[in-house]
């Protein structure tokens, strides 16, 4: 699409004051396999056109597959009908920003033989190195995504990202006994030399192999939780990003709404939004409003520096637009994870948190999955039927160590974090 795309021109001709069109085209090749067999070779193409029309401060959107003229016409009609029914909102505007030249990241086409061969080798490698680990759903994939944006204000953007990814779900299985499920993966621009080394998988496969003799944590106590990168993303990062986002400011429910410039975490902790990081194939050069993304320090040395505010919220609340929300980095600390464990008197090492989604007050509770009981600086035994609970605001302030090792998942880069004050109880 060029600036002022045919779709946005059509929308304006049909009666809109302004319009924007976003096109996302995905081409994917995927090999699905399990511990024993190659299962499926899947190739998909999809193309979604999203149209937004604006009229008198009213906004309506409609999405369709493809760009067939009759479908575009129907989508414009649907979007205009939706806008006509909507109440006016002065924040409903199209963005004005500097267009950037189209950018291409990563490979332009899949190496299909590579996808199949690495999957086949992974089956052999697992049988050799981790015979007690069973995976059922493993996906080795290449995806090429082209995102285009154009508006009636003349703003046009385009980016193309080709990347490889591997994701698998697995568990230990031996003599009729199973460990807890675990799952992990990562994406990268370059093909993976070995799938067994992707992200944190080698470590997790090893832990699954050592987790057959699970038992509950001893009683109920308040202790440390050492959160590994795999657990950190779901347990801490996404709930925190949500309450630091503009929509939580709009709802008035963010516990941090008055905390900008104040310490909300341990000085050891920073949270950086890096949507265009060179190692993040899941990043974005521009957001859904066509505005270029840029780096933002959200929390620096424990101090809340800024909120994640998009174009709409900026207009709605009279704030400065700050960043696109994709791509987060928690910088490493100075200690090794082994040293952090060695310094722990009593607590758990957590690889997966299986819990209810924390509400905006950031209370959390859930099961410590794929976890180990830690006492007097040593991993003692794998845990079963053990729950943890606490509050993420308090946990952020109670961080006592961050590991120097990090895992790059392709959309986030995260260390291991240790914090105290968490209620731990085994059945």
């Amino acid at each position, binding site marked *: 699409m060029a600036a002022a795309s045919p779709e946005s021109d059509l929308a304006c001709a049909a009666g809109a004051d302004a319009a924007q069109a976003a096109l996302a085209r995905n081409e994917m090749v995927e090999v699905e396999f399990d511990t024993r067999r190659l299962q499926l070779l899947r190739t998909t193409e999809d193309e979604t056109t999203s149209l937004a029309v604006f009229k008198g401060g009213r906004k309506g959107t409609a999405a369709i597959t493809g760009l067939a003229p009759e479908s575009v016409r129907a989508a414009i009609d649907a979007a205009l009908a939706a806008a006509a029914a909507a109440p006016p909102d002065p924040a409903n505007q199209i963005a004005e920003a500097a267009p950037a030249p189209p950018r291409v990241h990563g490979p332009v086409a899949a190496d299909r033989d590579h996808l199949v061969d690495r999957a086949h080798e992974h089956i052999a490698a697992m049988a050799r190195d981790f015979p007690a680990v069973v995976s059922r759903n493993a996906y080795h994939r290449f995806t090429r995504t082209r995102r285009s944006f154009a508006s009636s204000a003349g703003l046009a953007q385009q980016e193309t990202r080709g990347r490889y990814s591997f994701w698998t779900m697995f568990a230990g299985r031996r003599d009729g006994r199973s460990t807890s499920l675990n799952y992990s993966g990562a994406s990268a621009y370059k093909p993976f030399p070995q799938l067994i080394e992707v992200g944190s998988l080698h470590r997790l496969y090893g832990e699954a192999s050592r987790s057959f003799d699970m038992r509950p944590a001893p009683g109920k106590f308040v202790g440390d939780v050492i959160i590994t990168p795999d657990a950190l993303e779901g347990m801490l990062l996404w709930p925190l990003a949500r309450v630091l986002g503009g929509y939580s400011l709009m*709802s008035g429910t963010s516990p941090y709404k008055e905390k900008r410039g104040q310490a909300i975490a341990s000085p050891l902790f920073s949270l950086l939004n890096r949507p265009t990081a060179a190692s993040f194939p899941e990043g974005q050069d521009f957001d859904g409003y066509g505005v270029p993304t840029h780096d933002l320090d959200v929390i620096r040395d424990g101090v809340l520096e800024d909120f994640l505010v998009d174009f709409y919220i900026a207009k709605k609340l009279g704030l400065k637009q700050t960043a696109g929300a994709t791509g987060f980095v928690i910088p490493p600390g100075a200690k090794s994870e082994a040293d952090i464990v060695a310094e722990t008197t009593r607590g758990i090492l957590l690889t997966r948190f299986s819990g209810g989604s924390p509400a905006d007050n950031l209370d959390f509770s859930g099961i410590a999955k794929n976890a180990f009981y830690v006492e007097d600086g040593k991993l003692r035994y794998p845990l079963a039927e053990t729950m943890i609970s606490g509050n993420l605001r308090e946990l952020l302030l109670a961080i006592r160590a961050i590991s120097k090792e990090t895992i790059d998942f392709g959309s986030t880069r995260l260390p291991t974090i240790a914090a105290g004050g968490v209620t731990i109880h085994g059945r």
Partner: protein
Amino acid sequence: MLDRLERIVATAPGYAELRLHRNISRRLFMRRGTLIENASATLAGGSARCHALGTFGFTSLPAEDDAALERVLRDARANADQLGRRAAYSDQPLPATPRGEGVWDYRTKRPKLGAAARVDLLKRLDAYIGAHCPNLLNVDLTLQELAIEKALATSEGARTQCVSPRTVLYVQMSMQGGDGPVQLYQVFGGFGEFEDQAEALAALAPAIDRLYADLRRKAEGVHPDAGFHDVVLDSDLAGILAHEAIGHTCEADLVLAGSIAGGRIGEQVASEKITLMDQGGRGFDGGSTIAIHVDDEGTPCRDIAIIEKGVLRGFLNNKATAQELEAEPTGNARAFTFADEPIVRMRSTCIMPGTDKLQDMIGAVERGYYLKRSSNGQADLTSEFMFGVVCGCEIVNGKLGRAIRDTTISGVAFDVLKAVTHVGDTMTWSGGGFCGKKTLIPVGMGGPAIKTKLNIGGR
């Protein structure tokens, strides 16, 4: 449409499925009276899956014409051939099943309503809440509609078409508690298009009053005492218990991955009061929030008793897992979008109602919790499940006590079901359940209230 699919799939040299698939959705999201999202989408395409040389090939395209269907069929077969040559497995054919045939169209028969009716509904509800529910920090109203249209023909002669719509409204309120914001939400609506649900959604005032009263109690509520407790799970929670605790554990792909349920068919795994089903159609009472009669491999959907009077009876299979387990396909192969291959998924999963009364269950608890509404959940091969609880209260000496804050409950499914002492006589289907296994997919979840023991998170 079916004639076209049937004609093209007949050209495939071996096993093949050919599907046309449309997901038609609409989403309105209002926060504090501001309509932030006002969107519709029609995402459609064709796909094919073939089986050759012991492996599958799948291809999808964002188009529905004959040329696209011919191409997906050709490319899917080429994919299967490429993988099959690399794998060099024996070419064992998939198990044949009865041909799934029939057309089910659940689109509304009522006059269609436009965008204005939907926006007006949200505005009226927001105004009602503003007038009757003071001291709220925030109100979110989300209207979500999804109609899934599928047409399928297979090389085995299946020929079927179905349109399954669902309309749900999420109402969430927040107020300030002593230690930060406290939220509570409830899901309304269910099977059918907006026109089928509009009347009920417009009459939500009493339910909103109850939701607000629950939120006020929750804002003054306490954290549960972390530990193992007697609990009464309201019927609103029974569905997610059936889905997370047992349903996933008995999906045959997870059985093959090492689920604890594997090899236990015929064992007593639950109280004799427990019968747990995964059902086709719209569930045993016609009340489920999804409709599925033939799965996406063309297999007619059979009702499966996973647990019958406490005894583990069956697993949920597609053709590939049935082949590995030497079982019968059950009609559980489902795909969410045109670009997804069918995998083993639940349909309408429920604990069958018993004969006990909710008040008797609560009265039988000396010290424990009555848990009323859930949020997200997760399963495990070990059958140790969890799900979030957003609304509940203490039970002290058989009487309801203080409200509790958000928590998570967990347990080992078979232990929890063995500890069941009461099964209620009133059935509830959850309004808007989605399952997230590789892809999202709408599922039906239901059941009655039960009394059991499990772990509860807290302080």
